[in-house]
């Protein structure tokens, strides 16, 4: 018995090309603020990484003209955007929708590996630890960014909802549970 792998949306190549000339600094600044916030609000995620909590992870969205680096060395979390793949202990590559869908509880990482939507290179243990830690953290990127956006939060949520509808990329947590869990 077989059925089809989930269709992971790919951003149109034209969008990637249009983004190519854009400066990465504003994105890195936003990512830095986001990483500080994640470290403060989700300490359990970093504890769960254990011995892998001092490594560098290159996250390579293959349909975007940039590579993200998550650098956990020195007990700090730093997220930055790069034109070319930076040095890292592990590299994970795939469509941006795969990364965001996993983070938001919509896709299973192993299933994306089976279907070849995700490619893993380097320190496999570190990749597994990161995937499990992020899955357990039950992150919602839209809500994290909305909190950073202050008075613009409403506008940001509306814009994200529209982008989600247009692109098929999962931009918020899909499995919000009933309250009361410890």
């Amino acid at each position: 018995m077989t059925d089809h792998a989930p269709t992971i949306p790919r951003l149109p190549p034209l969008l990637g090309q249009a983004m190519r000339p854009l400066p990465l600094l504003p994105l890195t600044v936003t990512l830095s603020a986001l990483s500080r916030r994640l470290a403060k609000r989700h300490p359990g995620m970093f504890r769960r990484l254990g011995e892998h909590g001092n490594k560098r992870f290159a996250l390579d969205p293959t349909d975007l003209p940039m590579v993200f680096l998550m650098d956990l060395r020195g007990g700090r979390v730093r997220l930055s955007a790069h034109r070319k793949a930076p040095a890292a202990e592990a590299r994970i590559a795939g469509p941006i929708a795969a990364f965001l869908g996993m983070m938001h509880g919509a896709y299973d990482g192993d299933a994306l590996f089976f279907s070849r939507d995700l490619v893993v290179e380097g320190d496999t243990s570190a990749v597994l630890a990161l995937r499990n830690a992020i899955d357990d953290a039950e992150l919602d990127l839209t809500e994290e960014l909305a909190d950073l956006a202050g008075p613009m939060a409403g506008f940001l949520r509306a814009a994200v909802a529209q982008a989600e509808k247009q692109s098929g990329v999962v931009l918020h947590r899909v499995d919000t549970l009933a309250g009361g869990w410890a």
Partner: protein
Amino acid sequence: MMELVCPAGTPAAMRAAVEAGAHAVYCGFADETNARNFPGLNFSTEEMASGIAGAHARGAKVLVALNTFPRAGGEELWHRRLADAEAAGADAVILADMGLLAHAAEHHPRMRRHLSVQAAAANPDAINFYAEAFGVQRVVLPRVLTVDEIAAINREIDVETEVFVFGGLCVMAEGRCSLSSYATGKSPNMNGVCSPASHVAYAEEGQDLAARLGGFTIHRTPKNQPAPYPTLCKGCFSSGDQTGHVFEDPVSLDAKHLIPALAKAGVTALKIEGRQRSRAYVGEVVRTFRAAVEAVAAGRPMPEGALARLSEGQAATAGAYAKTWR
């Protein structure tokens, strides 16, 4: 209704399982006392206690797996984890080792004891021995039996039986397989890891994805073909002019359509494999199987729904239950 026993590798997966309809969840501590000792997975002592409290508040049971085999002289960790499980309020512990079973029976007599699939008890004599010697109340049957064999076993034992219905499929005698040890020095039985990630390396070589375990290339997957787990038993090897899967194709178990037959065979509980999987997997599989056991209990037709895309090899088999597998 048959009891649905569902995997939880993390507290988030436990929440997903319970919210999706799990009657019971099984999980383990973050160390070598359980057979899914993977990086970033499992529960601290505090997470176990709060997870069990949350599950109980929603009417779900929690079964704690302590299903590896303690090393001689190193039993203290396993003994401490038994006490931790009882203190956290576990509904049962899932054990494989006779020494640990004896310790649990003597020191934690009120805690229910289930026999892990890792004990590989596959006949009435073995099961009755574990029941009489250690007060085991449920046995998880190895994935080597047909439905008729399970029915025959159930007629000769007085303990409950639990069988796997979905997920990764070990093709070896569980608890006895040392294939992983040959390539890595580590095994699920002693270290809680089969083909440990620390010994796995992937490389894109041309159009192929090469997977290496302990330095041995165990399969090379062409472009657009599903990638399997890096386990030796699902490896694709070349010998002379032949290339093929020596033990088993990369495929995983889906026995949903056999639930009515398993109920008729006297099975008490249905187990879903996948503590190493995400909360997305857990939620989707548990919802599908909860609908199935409810339909069977109500005498309704089995609901449709394919889960093969979540499966290794993106293909499923009924495994040994129907003996249609190579």
